[in-house]
């Protein structure tokens, strides 16, 4: 029972950390609970379907269907995160200001909410199918006390959800002015980590070169198979033995988010600059 609790807890936590961060990142936006709940439901439904066709998917594309599918899911999430990131660079400051002064929910950012909803759905799709398969395995092998194992699984689900909720509460305790800055950094790291992992997966099936199988090894410091290692893996993309392509994808995504956000923010400032006087100080 404890074993199944731990396994389900780990998988739920991986998706749950994403859900917790997304909840915090959309704090104060009207309708966000509905959108994110829809994302969770869609992800869970998709995960069940995916588990059903796991065998077929695995055999697809000469046995590499699973890898291509996972990479596609991760890269789609990166795109959605990018969209949200640019939108926040444009509107984030107003959002924080309104949230602080009005203290009520803001009717804005339908598109960004949709992006966040998809990110949640994709995270649950990816991790959830593993949970479904695991629980199915328990039920199928009905010899070794399936009830206790199943209860353990439910316990793991509840525990994972509880930790995700705690993360959300911890994040929204951050003063409103800083909240979106913090979630912005978290979502950027999340996107970079996903991009890195997607390319590591593609390299594994030989779709892209690895550019070095193991650039460094920090397993002595923090192993991937520890709970902290796994949590850091989800949030920041940490891995103890990164490949070259993984680091490259990570770096490129990180740079794209930072530069893209800066450019968007600057364009926003220029657009909304109050015209007090003519710009006459042109020292060429």
């Amino acid at each position: 029972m404890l074993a199944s609790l731990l396994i389900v807890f780990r998988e739920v936590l991986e998706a749950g950390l994403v859900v917790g961060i997304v909840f915090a990142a959309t704090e104060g936006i009207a309708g966000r609970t509905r959108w994110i709940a829809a994302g969770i439901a869609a992800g869970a439904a998709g995960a069940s379907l995916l588990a059903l066709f796991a065998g077929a998917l695995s055999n697809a594309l000469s046995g590499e269907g699973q890898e291509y599918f996972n990479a596609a899911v991760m890269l789609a999430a990166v795109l959605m995160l990018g969209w949200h990131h640019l939108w926040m660079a444009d509107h984030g400051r107003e959002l924080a200001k309104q949230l602080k002064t009005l203290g009520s929910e803001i009717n804005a950012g339908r598109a960004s909410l949709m992006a966040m909803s998809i990110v949640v759905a994709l995270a649950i799709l990816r991790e959830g199918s593993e949970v479904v398969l695991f629980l199915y395995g328990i039920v199928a092998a009905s010899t070794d006390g399936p009830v206790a194992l199943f209860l353990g699984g439910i316990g793991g689900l509840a525990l994972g959800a509880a930790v995700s909720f705690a993360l959300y509460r911890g994040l929204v305790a951050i003063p409103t002015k800083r909240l979106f800055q913090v979630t912005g950094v978290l979502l950027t790291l999340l996107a970079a980590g996903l991009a890195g992992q997607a390319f590591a997966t593609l390299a594994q099936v030989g779709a892209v070169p690895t550019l070095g199988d193991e650039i460094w090894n920090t397993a002595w410091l923090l192993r991937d198979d520890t709970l902290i290692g796994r949590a850091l893996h989800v949030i920041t993309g940490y891995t103890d033995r990164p490949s070259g392509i993984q680091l490259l994808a990570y770096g490129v995504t990180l740079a794209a988010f930072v530069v893209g956000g800066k450019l968007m923010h600057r364009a926003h400032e220029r657009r909304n600059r109050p015209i007090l006087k003519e710009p006459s100080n042109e020292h060429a």
Partner: protein
Amino acid sequence: MRPSAFPKVLFSSAVAVGLGFAGQALAQAPLQLSVQNHHFTPAVITAPAGQRFMIQVHNLDGTPEEFESYDFKVEKIMAPHASIIVPVGALKPGNYAFFGDYNPTLAKGVLRVTPGGH
């Protein structure tokens, strides 16, 4: 070319191509591993250091399993009674643990990477 010679030519080229592929497949024949009753057989497999290779895992159980290793970064789901092939990157000599993620206490094995591959 006379019409009657054509099948012969076709056949011999097919044989040549077939042999070529066989030779290639032999040079990189995947390491074999099976999981039954949630245990890996063999529990220890050996591979040479510094070159990429494949591991073929056969799931003989009626339940799904995930072949996973943190040490050589593999994570792949196996449907019941299905086989998978996973590529493994060039590794340094040493012992690399792998496990079945759905039965981690039972399904455990070690990949031993040695300079000579023995």
